[in-house]
């Protein structure tokens, strides 16, 4: 029985169910289907992921009884795709086996409406976003936002785009606002920058200036009047000052990413973001916090309209220390290096779990921000940045002058790239020696190859056979190779079993149950550039480094992280541009980030989805 993974998009693409329905056995055959459409009416549209290859066509899912069907996804490895049984589905183009099929340049140029993007939801700031914003807005330190109810997620990434608003979170934000405002009171002179005791114009001036930072856009006159009224109720300047802050930090314009667009009203057609909204989207993407003065100044002067300026800003922002908050946030969530995925390790050995997270954070920053920025390097670098605990897991003695977080070269026969770091290897830790074959396979399959896997049939309750002398995990998992299990398990097990040289905590071992471990693996049904056997995760890293398939999936994950939503077929042209540029640059992540920022999807917003993307 595996523990829950939160937040993956709902649609499955494995041939498992189809195989079961057709009574097929050990190989994937028949028609791969897109997942089921979301249920009636008010559903949030998630794109059907392309069907995993092998079949001759991919169908979009059918909606529930009264719903519109999901849009048919492009057939992967198929010859055609039909839309779901909803009002409209798009016909996919034929694909080469295993490749994610982008539309052509001609198709994108010919789009009837000029440009097309998927629609966004109104997202409340995440806990880290609130913490970082308060740090930059009011120099707030400490972990005040830990007490907020946990975020939900979109894909693997923390996001409250779809989270319900409860009385509790409203109250918690009220408490947080009161605390922060009270603390700021002693710094009134430096924050207000004029003498509030003198009344107007200072009061209105303070409300306008502070409000502009709090709401991340200039206030209207009416809004200034409202908050100046709050000041007045305070009686004294100190009290009034405190109340204005306490109020603004509870406003939805502080708490939500209010990407309304330049028309000021919700639109079914994509509209440009206002310069302030673009500045905000940019800063939360690259820094996980509010814009700085430079970005606000550019927004005020409409400087962010130009691609050249945007590109300059991305470069500047990636070089800023604040990027070290957001960039690892992407990578660690993408790779399932989070307390939830670490299983019981996070709660029973919190210091070691934190070391694993810190090591992966430093590694990511060193390569993506400080190094060559290449995806391939992430997958293959022969060094890491361990702490004392994780150094022990590597089986290395502490080098002289060791400091936690310094670069340490690792044994290239055993380690190389992110896949061999303890943070990645520890998945759903259960307190024993065994690593999770299934969960390591699932992370690779779902997060790195973007092909979700169907669950087992409802009546199957998997109980792992216990380790025993004379058997390896491969032997114990042999039952997955036969019958109806194989359809899905061939997607995961041949990958997960290749990690067996690393135990439950990521320590290297050659024996399991006294038997020499066979770490051969294969990524089945994922296209030409991943075909062929490999031995162990170091080789898997090298395989992934050069893969267009992986590159496209990584780009899509960045899209989800940046925009807080799963890509829809309406985003296909934005994504195509990103895929192409990423590949052309040799999978340069910093280049990817720039291309994403310049894309239609990033610079526009669409609040209302057309019926076929519901």
């Amino acid at each position, binding site marked *: 029985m595996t523990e829950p993974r*939160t*937040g993956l998009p709902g649609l499955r693409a494995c041939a498992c169910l189809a195989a079961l329905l057709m009574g097929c056995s050990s190989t994937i055959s028949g028609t791969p289907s897109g997942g*089921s459409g979301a249920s009636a009416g008010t559903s949030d549209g998630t794109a059907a992921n392309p069907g995993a290859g092998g079949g001759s066509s991919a169908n979009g899912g059918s909606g529930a009884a009264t719903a519109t069907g999901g849009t048919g996804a492009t057939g992967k490895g198929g010859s055609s795709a039909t839309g779901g049984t909803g009002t409209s589905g798009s016909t996919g183009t034929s694909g080469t086996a295993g490749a994610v099929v982008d539309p052509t340049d001609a198709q994108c140029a010919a789009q009837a409406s000029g440009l097309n993007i998927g629609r966004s939801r109104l997202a409340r700031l995440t806990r880290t976003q609130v913490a970082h914003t308060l740090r930059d807005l009011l120099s707030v330190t400490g972990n005040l936002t830990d007490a907020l109810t946990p975020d939900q997620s979109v894909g693997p990434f923390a996001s409250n785009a779809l989270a319900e608003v409860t*009385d509790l979170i409203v109250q918690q934000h009220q408490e947080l606002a009161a605390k922060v405002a009270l603390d700021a009171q002693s710094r009134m002179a430096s924050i207000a920058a004029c003498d509030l005791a003198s009344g107007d114009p200072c009061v209105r001036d303070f409300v306008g200036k502070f409000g502009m930072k709090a709401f991340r856009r200039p206030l209207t006159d009416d809004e200034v009047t409202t908050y100046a009224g709050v000041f007045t109720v305070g009686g004294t300047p100190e009290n009034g000052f405190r109340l204005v802050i306490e*109020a603004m930090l509870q*406003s939805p314009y502080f708490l939500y990413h209010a990407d309304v667009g330049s028309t000021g009203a919700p639109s079914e057609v994509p509209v440009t973001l206002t310069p302030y909204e673009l500045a905000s989207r940019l800063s939360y993407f690259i820094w996980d916090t509010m814009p700085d003065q430079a970005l606000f100044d550019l927004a005020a002067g409409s400087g962010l309209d130009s691609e050249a300026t945007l590109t300059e800003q991305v470069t500047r922002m990636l070089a800023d220390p604040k990027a070290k908050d957001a960039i690892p946030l992407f990578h660690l969530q993408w790779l399932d290096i989070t307390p939830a995925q670490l299983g019981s390790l996070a*709660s029973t050995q919190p210091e070691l779990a934190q070391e694993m997270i810190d090591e992966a954070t430093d590694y990511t920053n060193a390569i993506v921000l400080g190094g060559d920025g290449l995806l391939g390097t992430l997958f293959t670098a022969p060094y890491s940045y361990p702490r004392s605990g994780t150094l022990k897991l590597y089986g290395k003695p502490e080098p002289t002058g060791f400091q936690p977080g310094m670069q340490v070269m690792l044994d290239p026969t055993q380690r190389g790239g992110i896949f061999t770091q303890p943070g990645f290897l520890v998945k759903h830790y259960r307190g024993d020696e065994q690593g999770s074959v299934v969960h390591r396979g699932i992370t690779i399959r779902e997060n790195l190859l973007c092909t979700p896997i169907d669950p087992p049939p409802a009546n199957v*309750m998997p109980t792992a056979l216990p380790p025993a002398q004379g058997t390896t995990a491969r032997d114990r998992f042999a039952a997955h190779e036969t019958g109806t299990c194989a359809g899905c398990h061939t997607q995961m097990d041949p990958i997960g079993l290749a990690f067996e040289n690393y135990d439950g905590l990521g320590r290297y071992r050659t024996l399991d149950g006294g038997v020499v471990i066979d770490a051969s693996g294969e990524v089945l049904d994922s296209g030409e550039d991943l075909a062929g056997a490999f031995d162990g995760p170091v080789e898997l890293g090298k395989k992934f480094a050069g893969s267009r398939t992986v590159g496209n999936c990584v780009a899509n994950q960045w899209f989800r992280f940046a925009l807080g939503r799963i890509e829809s077929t309406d985003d296909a042209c934005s994504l195509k541009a990103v895929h192409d540029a990423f590949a052309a640059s040799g999978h340069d992540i910093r280049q990817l980030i720039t291309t994403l920022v310049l894309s239609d999807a990033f610079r526009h917003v669409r609040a209302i989805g057309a019926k076929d993307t519901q």
Partner: protein
Amino acid sequence: MSRHTRRGLSRRALFQSLGLSAALSPFIPLLNASGQEAKRPKRLLIFYSPDGSADSDSSAGPIDWKPVGSETDFTLHQIQAPLDPLKSKLIVPWGLKMSAKGAGEQHAFGSAGCFTGSLLKEPGNGADFDGGNGHRTGWGSGPSVDQIVAAAAGPNCPYGVLPDAANQETAYRTLELGVQCGNPTSVTRTIYKGDDQPIHPETNPQAAFDRLFADFMPPTTDPGGQEAAAAAAAQRRAEQTSILDAVTKDLGKLRTQVSSEEYPKIEAHLNGIRALEQRLDTMVPTVSAGCSVPARPAASDRYANNAKFPTEVSAMLGLIPAILACDLTRVASVQLSSGFSNVTHTWLGQSTAHHTMSHQNADNRDALMAIDNWYAEQLFGMLKAMDEIDEGNGTLLDNTLVLWGRELGTTSHSMSPWPVVLIGGAQGALRTGRFLDVNKEPSAKLLVSVMQAMGIDDAMTIGNVDANSGPLTQLT
């Protein structure tokens, strides 16, 4: 600021009319309009502990925890034995089949159904979670029994006024508490306001304490002090009102700028603001007999710390008698851990997580029973404290109905018999001190009985799994 209790005058009006100061309040019973002692109201408390009763995937079968003996003369099984000193105040209904079904697997739809009798839905409306083994689910589809009871009003209900009435009797209509409940998914939430409306519990004991008890006023004899306190309260009320008005205005403006799909979010946010506003008007409790401020819990860690689980449980449960006795709310729930419980009970000498042990290819039934026994001990500690508070018409425990439930029947995912216990009896609404063989009856009947016991006299249905079940008549 006037407030009328269900049966009498507000304390403040009473003090003013009697010319008494707040200092004497511990000695003034709650009197009704004709000077007779008004009955303390009924309370409802849901207590959740994880998983089902012990079974072993690899062995001869689940434990039989059916109490041994006759209806009124019985011995509790080990998993409930710590409740023995309160045997006369409890009922063990053995054999219920959980009214829980739907998407995902049993931990998921059990969580969605155990207190709601409602289906767990397929993914949709943006809700999409792993409901176990990769099965995707949405949220549950109906309110939990505590929310139903809290939304009602009537002479036998906890509340006499409806939820949106101007003069609320308590600062909180309901309180949802928990300890290390995990990220929000269909497997970790058991309390629902309604369809697609899970309620997330407060899981930080110190934050809960600060929120609930920070405003408690120690009695003061100094009239100047009383005046100052009143003035400060009035100022605070004016400040908060102006803040909440500004926020409400912004929410209204934002609503015109977003798609209609977002209206439920805005509406829910407005409801949260209204709840804050309503609380401005509710009288702050004063420390008095039966209502004393509990110890302030220690801070929690950033992430769930297994070693601190027992302390946090103890701290959170330690708040509840005071929460109820001080009338901060009359309907509450406390969820300890969640489905797929990752808690490793090292303090019981165990080294594998609760849920992991339930599916190992080994017989872990002894260890699993020890875990249930431990949860029963924690529950007993709280119940005992409640039973030591004299409310005039019985103890706080007598005035309360406590429902101890879980999301499964057995650890091997059978949905029956549901290991449920009822303690307290809600002012004699249920006949306690009994064990009932109610084999195969749907749990919806028990939940309907809870509704009836809590004053919704004509309740006959809950949820959509076993709708229109009627009550479990053997309980009364």
